[in-house]
């Protein structure tokens, strides 16, 4: 996959990061640098302060659920030097995933981390206000996880369309035998605690 037009070579970032903070880099590729999850805050702080990389702004962050682990992707950018750095961290604890917060370095992480916590269930240590953002307290599960549709009391998607000309990858087609009918899912009690959000 080609890099973005202003994206730095991940190898270059990885080399510099490894030299400054030995052992922190897990992997450097053409596109991104992957750091040790426990030391993510350290890596971000170094990139933020470094004169060479000058990662002044956290432009975007999001999580990806890869079934047995999560990958957190941080897009940092320098406004002075006009380049973009992609930092990743993998979390292998799928039940209670946790990661250091980027908030002490980037205040722009405040709402983005709450969004990731809400929709993907990743806890950010050191975040001042770790609450759900969109959904209400007591909502069952975290919807952007890939196993969300399978959890008990989970919600069915209500969408059973998929391009039927696509037979190349039958695993992705929804198995219609196991889909609960709408009436069943409506009758089942939902286990949230309060009616309205606080």
């Amino acid at each position, binding site marked *: *996959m080609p890099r*973005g037009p202003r994206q730095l070579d991940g190898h270059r970032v990885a080399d510099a990061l490894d030299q400054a903070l030995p052992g922190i880099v897990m992997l450097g590729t053409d596109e991104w640098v992957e750091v040790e999850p426990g030391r993510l805050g350290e890596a971000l702080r170094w990139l933020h302060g470094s004169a060479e990389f000058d990662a002044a702004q956290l432009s975007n962050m999001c999580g990806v659920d890869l079934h047995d682990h999560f990958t957190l992707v941080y897009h940092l950018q320098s406004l002075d030097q006009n380049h973009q750095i992609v930092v990743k961290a993998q979390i292998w604890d799928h039940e209670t995933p946790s990661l250091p917060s980027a908030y002490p370095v980037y205040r722009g992480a405040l709402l983005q981390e709450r969004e990731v916590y809400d929709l993907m269930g990743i806890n950010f240590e050191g975040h001042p206000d770790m609450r759900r953002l*969109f*959904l209400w307290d007591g909502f069952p599960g975290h919807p952007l996880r890939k196993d969300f549709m399978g959890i008990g009391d989970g919600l069915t998607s209500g969408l059973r369309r*998929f*391009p039927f000309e696509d037979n190349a990858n039958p695993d992705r087609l929804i198995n219609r035998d196991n889909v609960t009918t709408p009436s069943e899912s409506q009758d089942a009690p939902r286990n949230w605690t309060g009616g309205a*959000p606080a």
Partner: protein
Amino acid sequence: MTTASEPYVLNIGPQHPSTHGVFRIRVVMDGEQIQDLDMIVGYLHRSMEKLAEERTYTQNIPFTDRADYLAAMSGNLGLCLAVERLANVEVPERASYLRVIFAELQRIASHAMANGTLVSDAGAWQTPLLYMFREREKILDLFEMTCGARLTTNYMRIGGVAFEPPPEFWPALRELVDELPQRIDEYAQMVQENEIFIARTRNVGIISPEDAINGSLVGPALRGSGVPWDLRKAEPYCVYDRMDFEVPVGTVGDVYDRYMVRLEETRQSTRIIRQAMDAIPDGPHKTDIPLALRPDPGEVYARVEGPRGEAGYYLVSDGSPAPYRFHMRAPSLINLSLLREMARGAALSDAVVTLGSLDIVVGEIDR
């Protein structure tokens, strides 16, 4: 005589004209001063990112209309650019020019709405808003004659745009572009020298450049603080590198600067549209792509400068026709990162104007 005061909680919204949508704030007040603020969002959450994982890339384009519903064209464009880079799709030149024209028309329409509602918040009840809607209306007419929709346009396609504009589009656009500079001057005269407006907006809601960068602010909110950052210049997409335009920035970083940045940007957008109209080449308006486009496994983060700033799309492909992960970077949400800090110690009426100057669209916050 002294009177005791004690803090109380005031609830604003979700249905309130100055929150610009279903956006709710709980403020802890001491007299008229805000002590603390808590924003509650999610009333418009439609789980777009989850739904997108079961649809093809083309089927996902309508979601981008409904995320930032005041800037549907920019949202369309961001997603299409992301998928095109992911799947290596070439875009015909005419399509790139059409995209620029529509994205800039959308910027004018969106800024007219933003500035109109801001002036409304500052006390000029509805009159300037309706003046600004006059040109927005004409822009929406142009959208309607091209793609049949006014707000949820769903016009851009992967590899181009959906339709060629009809023949009557071009004279109407020419007429609009010719009268726009005069109309924009009219708005400027009407509002920016108004004493009440100046009193309500100057030195209110100041964001320093350092805070703006650290707080991930983008778009007019960042440029209002004096940071000359515009993706159309920094990372030119489509044919913006061939266009001659300027990036207005503020000096103080207050509400007034953000208002003026938006106003000036509409002038610059008019310039861009005129250049694009004159330079647009003939040719096809789209390339044909497979109905179920299967990009190679990989990931991409593409971004455009929407009216509210960097609208980014992070897509992960696993080689199937639907994205494995579909993430929208919502500038409206992320621009609110500093809201709590900014509101503390401010008067409630100032906080309302500050919120208006950040120009949030709740559809994009909640997605």
